[in-house]
């Protein structure tokens, strides 16, 4: 009774295929957006922004991107870290080469460049499938990180080999660099997250999304009913990399401010984002958010319990984190391959009947 869908009738196909077909969901969505845009910025602190909100928002974009490729189109990628690095370095080169252009445009362009690189690395997916492809994407991961490490043009020949985000403003407020207020970097990320989620939702509920899912579920049958596998796979790589590139650009420019490629975008980043979508739910936009929130909060919570409460050394807590993440991955794959998103759906089905289950 708390959650109703009965009595919510549709009179047009447009209404039936909207993002939240159930009125209750629609209201909640608007409430969440309103709080995120109008309330949170007034209460945000540097700590909550840096420890929770910014990484959550930025990883959500990456997770949406990977979920499009893996969850919707069925192509497993272990190169997410490498593609995030492309976004970051593209953004850096653009920022320093065209300082007068708005940073937001740079971030979008960085996404576009990453999309091009991602598409190039997606070409082998036409010939190789499954975990062969997963291993092949490791080539992208290791090669790209090596490239940004060795070719000093990418970091403007700086002695440290790092890239540092110079200060850039939007409407007179700094959004990158050390003088950025927490609410400004938060809002920038929030705008991108909202836009990316909407685009992802539209693409996945429409014709393109159906092509991706058809390829994922049965590629041969998909081709025979008229899906061009080349186009479907490459668009998945392109759209996915676009999002991942944006998240990489934000990760560098807005969140960290200074980046060393091997440390920030190593193979572990690829696994982290993959784990987010496994835990959150493969093939679900909401799952990308849930997984990102979960894996961003986990270390914070573990640190609270382990270090602050129990007084353990940090390395011990870090080891525990590995164990817990590993266990969770296995648990979700065994019990609930559709992740937190499916648990949420089940909870809703229960709520619909509560408190009168019969």
């Amino acid at each position, binding site marked *: 009774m708390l959650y109703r869908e009965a009595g919510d009738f549709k009179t047009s196909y447009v209404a039936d295929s909207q993002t939240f077909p159930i009125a209750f969901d629609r209201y909640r969505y608007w409430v969440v957006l309103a709080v995120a845009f109008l309330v949170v910025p007034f209460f945000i602190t540097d700590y909550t922004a840096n420890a929770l909100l910014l990484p959550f928002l930025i990883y959500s974009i990456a997770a949406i991107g990977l979920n499009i490729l893996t969850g919707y189109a*069925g192509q*497993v990628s272990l190169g997410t870290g490498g593609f995030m690095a492309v976004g970051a370095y593209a953004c850096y080169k653009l920022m320093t080469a065209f300082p007068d252009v708005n940073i937001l445009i740079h971030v979008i362009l960085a996404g576009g460049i990453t999309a091009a690189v991602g598409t190039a690395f997606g*070409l*082998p997916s036409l*010939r*190789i499938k*499954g*975990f*062969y492809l*997963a*291993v*092949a994407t*490791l*080539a992208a*991961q*290791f*090669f790209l*990180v*090596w490239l940004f*490490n*060795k*070719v000093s043009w990418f970091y403007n020949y700086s002695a440290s080999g790092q890239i540092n985000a110079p200060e850039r403003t939007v409407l007179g407020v700094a959004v990158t660099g050390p003088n950025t207020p927490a609410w400004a970097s938060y809002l920038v990320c929030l705008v991108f997250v909202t836009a990316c989620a909407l685009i992802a939702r539209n693409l996945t509920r429409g014709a393109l999304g159906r092509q991706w899912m058809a390829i994922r579920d049965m590629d*041969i*049958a998909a081709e*025979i009913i008229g899906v061009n596998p080349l186009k479907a796979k490459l668009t998945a790589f392109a759209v996915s990399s676009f999002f991942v590139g944006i998240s990489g650009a934000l990760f560098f420019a807005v969140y960290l401010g200074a980046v060393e490629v091997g440390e920030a975008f190593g*193979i572990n980043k690829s*696994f982290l984002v*993959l*784990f987010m979508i*496994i835990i959150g739910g493969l093939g679900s936009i909401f799952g990308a958010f849930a997984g990102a929130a979960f894996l961003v909060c986990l270390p914070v919570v573990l640190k609270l319990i382990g270090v602050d409460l*129990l*007084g*353990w*050394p940090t*390395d*011990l807590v870090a*080891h*525990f*984190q*590995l*164990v*817990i*993440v*590993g*266990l*969770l*991955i*296995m648990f979700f*794959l*065994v019990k609930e*391959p559709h992740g937190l998103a499916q648990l949420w759906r089940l909870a809703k089905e229960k709520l619909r009947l509560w408190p009168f289950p019969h």
Partner: protein
Amino acid sequence: MSADFLYGIEVVINGLMAGVMYALVALGFVLIFKASGIFNFAQGVMALFAALTLVGIMEGQIPFAHLINATFGTEIHHFGWHVPALLAIAMTVGVMVLFAWAVQRFLFRHLVGQEPIILFMATIGLAYFLEGVGDLMWGSDIKTLALGLPQGGARWIEDATAGLGGDDFYGFFIDKLDIVATGVAIVLVTGLILFSQYTKHGRAMRAVADDHQAALSVGISLNFIWILVWSLAGFVALVAGIMWGAKSGVQFSLSLIALKALPVLMLGGFTSIPGAIVGGLIIGVGEKLFEYLIGPMVGGATENWFAYVLALLFLVFRPQGLFGEKIIERV
């Protein structure tokens, strides 16, 4: 012969030795993949875990000492004894068998019939878990593995070959450990082939690899076979862990080096033991030669990616690997 050319040959020889190491890890993958269709991403971490356990047992470390100390405020680290190497190896094998059983019982028994890609991702989770457990049990500091394996260059080879080139050439430098590793690898592969050809369990293993259903119907216990292959893979991981560990210390990077076994498999095919060996040698020689010839022009450290890119390019042109057969797709 010019010195440059001779050094090139030395690079090739060292590449072959490195390839043997890759092949050792790849062997573990092949065993598990053949019998269960699982692409075991955790093989590298298994090698790390086995080596950690071996060091821990030999030095009489108390498992989970770090955790116990943090929880109870104690200061315990060692039992105060040292276990002889052979006994420690036997005990480590025991631990790996136990691990094999647990993996089968708690993970893959629940994943029977799932798609390969789900199984693959489960082994990534397994890799994280095992790495965490290894760190919790034995600590994450770099350990040296003191099994008394020979170290350093083989002087007699250097002396014997010094005369081949001119004054600039001082003879082939070949690590004694690599020679030992090659010997061990040959023994291991021969042993595995003999096992699978001439023993009852070996034959059962091959039957399972061929057809699960058929194997079940003639009374082979799939569960037993899977525990067996995971144990064997654990044993191979231990051998690989010892060799790698003796070479560069027992530390996390060991599991990353083991990732290189993946491109090896992509070259050699996932089901072929000879493929794993040939693939390992190609990758070993290829990356050493590439680094020697091209590396200086592009800033070095090409070994990080060469194997993957080679495998990627290779697969695009021959998706079934070196020894695989062309697959006819059906609907």
